[in-house]
């Protein structure tokens, strides 16, 4: 390393950091100490308590404030003379366009979600700015360098496919605790407290066919809350299970579940037991938010509750939602930082688990599964940040022969804990950085344009504001700047069947889709197919030549639901990711596999890692794990 030229390169550099979380705090500090003096930093998040164990620029008093701004102020205390420009914003906002990216010499990612990573990758490719990408999960992490034309782009390699569960496993035949969590969170919680207009696959057996018009989940006008809670309990854990048992075929080769009614779980008069909050109430302090645990005197989140305690928590939490948070019910979305929601989901999942003979779990463990919480420690983030800066300096010096992707391992492989690997060359068939067309198999006679736009163009290809052309005819465009008549026309097209569009989409048609903000354009060749397997091909269409991630889905009827979804980009430090070892590479990543334990470590309970055939690396946080998020959903904060 020629010190003088490193110093010059650092001094002259203008760098963009995306993410001021676990990796971001460490990175900003190390950049400042290393002499970087013009740093821009984007982060949309605000500070939470669970960040404080590793995001060392933040203190208790900063909870609720912008990460980017507080990080800037903290670093200026020890490097007052440098320039740090914070943006409390989403990197996907239109202000961060290609021109914005072009002003930087290098972009450094400390992100926690795939969506934003892909977006930044595209902007860096379009602006021709080198990108240093990173992720951590527990003791594992990786740093990769992406320079257009020299190394692969972030999307050249297939990303691990998050675990998805067949609908019927969730609704009828759970065999693992995670299945019960998904049921409790995405079906029951959503049904009771979420948007009533959303499709929901919760099995509802009505006691009486003639009354099937009335929704059993609807609370009758003057129904007592305790009675209502008990009625829901008996219905979902008792009656529904009993009804399901009637289907002999299902249970031929399976253990039969036990229906559970209140009278079984809480034999000593449940009505009296439930809600006797005053018995246990901690009188010294009124909890700032309602909690069934506090009401019931349950204190240890690490403890596994009995069926009776789970039942009490279920009834109490349900009651508290309607009593104390009634305004929110009807539009709640599960959030792992919502204590009452976590309590409800833990209890409901455990009761269902008891029914199906699945081991029960503590609230702490259930929260981890439900929130898809990535394991994170300060040390790995610090190490990864150091490695990012080392690569960034090489990039600034144009020292491309020495670019490395580096893996931080938990168990040494060939004596190494930090293992550098030569970067891969660009993948010639990558739809993002090369112009290889994709192939979409779809039933052109039954599929609406909307489905292609939502499921393929936005979700799979990760486009933000796409435009769709059939030949030279523009059939759809997204964005705010449209004329009203144009917008109306596109809205109309969205609801049309592909074959009936003004420029019909048939077998052999070529679609051109483009996102101006990302400056990404690709071609999709359409191949007509009549039938799709509803379990294996739940989208009702298959995209080939695409190596991106697959959304986790619960449903088979075309509605996409992330499972179990991270409630947002929050608190993950980025994920370590899986990169497949490709044949013919100078150095195969499977050398890393010398120690198989490195992989096992990645197989954390949230099933984030796809398979041990793939190589280390991603998300924890940070990677080996991908988190999918519903892009429209964003982070839902409770109003209080």
């Amino acid at each position: 390393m020629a010190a003088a030229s490193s110093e010059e390169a650092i001094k002259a550099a203008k760098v963009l950091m995306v993410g001021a979380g676990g990796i971001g705090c460490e990175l900003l500090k190390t950049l400042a100490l290393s002499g970087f003096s013009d740093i821009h930093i984007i982060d949309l998040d605000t500070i939470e308590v669970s960040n404080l164990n590793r995001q060392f620029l933040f203190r208790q008093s900063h909870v609720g404030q912008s990460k980017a701004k507080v990080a800037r102020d903290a670093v200026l205390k020890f490097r007052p003379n440098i320039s740090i420009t914070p943006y409390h914003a989403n990197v996907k906002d239109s202000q961060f366009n290609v021109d914005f990216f072009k002003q930087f010499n290098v972009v450094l990612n400390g992100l926690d979600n795939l969506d934003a990573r892909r977006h930044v990758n595209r902007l860096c490719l379009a602006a021709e700015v080198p990108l240093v990408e990173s992720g951590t999960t527990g003791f594992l992490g990786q740093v990769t360098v992406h320079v257009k034309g020299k190394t692969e782009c972030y999307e050249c390699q297939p990303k691990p496919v998050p675990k998805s569960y067949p609908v019927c496993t969730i609704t009828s035949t759970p065999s693992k605790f995670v299945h019960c969590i998904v049921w409790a969170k995405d079906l029951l919680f959503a049904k009771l407290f979420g948007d009533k207009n959303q499709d929901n696959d919760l099995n509802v057996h009505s006691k009486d066919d003639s009354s099937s018009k009335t929704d059993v989940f609807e609370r009758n006008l003057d129904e007592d809350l305790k009675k209502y809670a008990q009625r829901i309990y008996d219905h979902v854990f008792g009656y529904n299970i009993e009804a399901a048992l009637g289907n002999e075929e299902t249970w031929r080769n399976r253990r039969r579940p036990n229906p559970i009614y209140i009278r079984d779980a809480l034999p000593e008069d449940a009505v009296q037991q439930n809600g006797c909050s005053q018995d246990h109430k901690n009188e010294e302090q009124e909890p700032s938010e309602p909690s069934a645990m506090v009401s019931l005197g349950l204190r240890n989140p690490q403890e596994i509750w009995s069926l009776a305690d789970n039942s009490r928590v279920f009834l109490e939490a349900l009651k508290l939602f309607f009593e104390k948070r009634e305004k929110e019910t009807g539009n709640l979305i599960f959030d792992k930082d919502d204590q009452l929601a976590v309590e409800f989901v833990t209890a409901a999942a455990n009761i269902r688990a008891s029914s199906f003979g699945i081991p029960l779990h503590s609230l702490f463990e259930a929260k981890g599964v439900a929130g898809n919480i990535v394991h994170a420690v300060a040390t790995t983030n610090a190490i990864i940040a150091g490695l990012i800066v080392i690569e960034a300096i090489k990039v600034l010096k144009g020292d491309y022969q020495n670019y490395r992707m580096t893996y931080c391992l938990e168990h040494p492989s060939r004596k190494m804990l930090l293992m550098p690997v030569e970067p891969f060359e660009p993948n010639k068939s990558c739809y993002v950085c090369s112009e290889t067309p994709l192939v979409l198999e779809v039933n052109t006679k039954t599929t609406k344009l909307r489905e292609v736009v939502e499921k393929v163009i936005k979700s799979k290809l990760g486009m933000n504001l796409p435009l769709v052309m059939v030949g030279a005819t523009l059939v759809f465009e997204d964005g705010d700047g449209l004329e009203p008549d144009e917008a109306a026309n596109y809205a109309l097209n969205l609801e049309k069947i592909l074959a009936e569009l003004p420029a019909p989409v048939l077998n052999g048609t070529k679609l051109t889709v483009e996102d101006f903000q990302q400056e990404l354009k690709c071609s999709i060749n359409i191949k007509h197919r009549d039938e799709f397997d509803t379990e294996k091909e739940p989208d009702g269409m298959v995209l080939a030549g695409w190596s991106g991630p697959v959304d986790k889905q619960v449903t088979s009827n075309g509605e996409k639901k992330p499972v179990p979804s991270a409630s947002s980009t929050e608190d993950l430090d980025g994920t370590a990711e899986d990169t497949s070892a490709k044949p013919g590479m100078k150095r195969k990543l499977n050398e890393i596999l010398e120690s198989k334990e490195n992989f096992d470590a990645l197989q954390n309970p949230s099933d984030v890692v796809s398979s041990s055939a793939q190589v280390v690396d991603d998300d924890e946080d940070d990677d080996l794990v991908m988190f999918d998020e519903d892009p429209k959903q964003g982070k839902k904060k409770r109003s209080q």
Partner: protein
Amino acid sequence: MDGGGAGAGAEGELTAQETALYDRQIRVWGVDAQKRLSKAHVLVCGMNGTTIEFCKNIVLAGVGSLSLMDDHIVTEDDLNANFLIPPDESIYGGRSRAEVCCESLKDFNPMVRVSVEKGDPSLIDGQFLDKFDTVVVSRASLKTKLFINDSCRKRNKHIAFYAIDCKDSCGEIFVDLQEHSYVQKKPGGETEQQQLTYPSLQEAISVLWNGLPRKMTKLYFAMRVLENYELSEGRSPGETTLSDMPAVLARMKDMCDKMSFNESQIPAPLMERLLSAGKKEHPPVCAILGGILGQEVIKSISYKGDTIKNFFYFDAADGKGVIENISPNSAN
């Protein structure tokens, strides 16, 4: 997370406050490790860019207490790789490195006791060491390192010893856990009890070089030459420049001859890099070394996970972070 019953922790249980703060890391190492960590006492001798990274990491992780020993008055040179010292002479002027760093570190985690121990590490009293479970020494002379390591070993209680140094873009960590047993996770998920026996620093550096594996990192040899040279010249660690090169090469030849070791195995350019580094620390390398050491100390305190035996090296020039086992019984 509120509602878990603030302050409700029964004897031996983590409080709700601790559970909320340490949530993400408990998911990595478990509640038992967190409890052990909160009862551990760590001493750090020598405050610099590398040790403050380590201190930050274990304070955030929730170690029981951290004591800092470094009576040197802060100078402008100390500001380089240090984010704990505000660059304002009215704040640091006339105060010791330990005092100024302590003040900043206290702020990082109100649940950790951070304090200053005055004194000279080279004169540490054995009994004083009994207050600690882990001792970290940085930028100390070979003589001081050997003395403290030996003192730790002579105590009745088990005291883990670490030495850590950063020379610009290169770094070294030495680990002596004496007898260390821990739980190792096997590929299938089951666990196995492991037992490691560590040599002392004296025993490790006495292993003859010609008996070591050929693929050893060259940094090991270069660091031994450098500390040997500094000791014989009566210099403080890092008090070297390129002008020392001829004398250092002579010392190197001398040491190689004594151990029938081919001196061409120690590249002169590497020796040059270390000499010209002086006391300079490259901040990204400090972050990496301080991160690795933080992790190691957490592993040894919690008896969980593979610990390094017994040297770790990082060199930004090749990007490798390598473990070398240099023990009398493993040398051949």
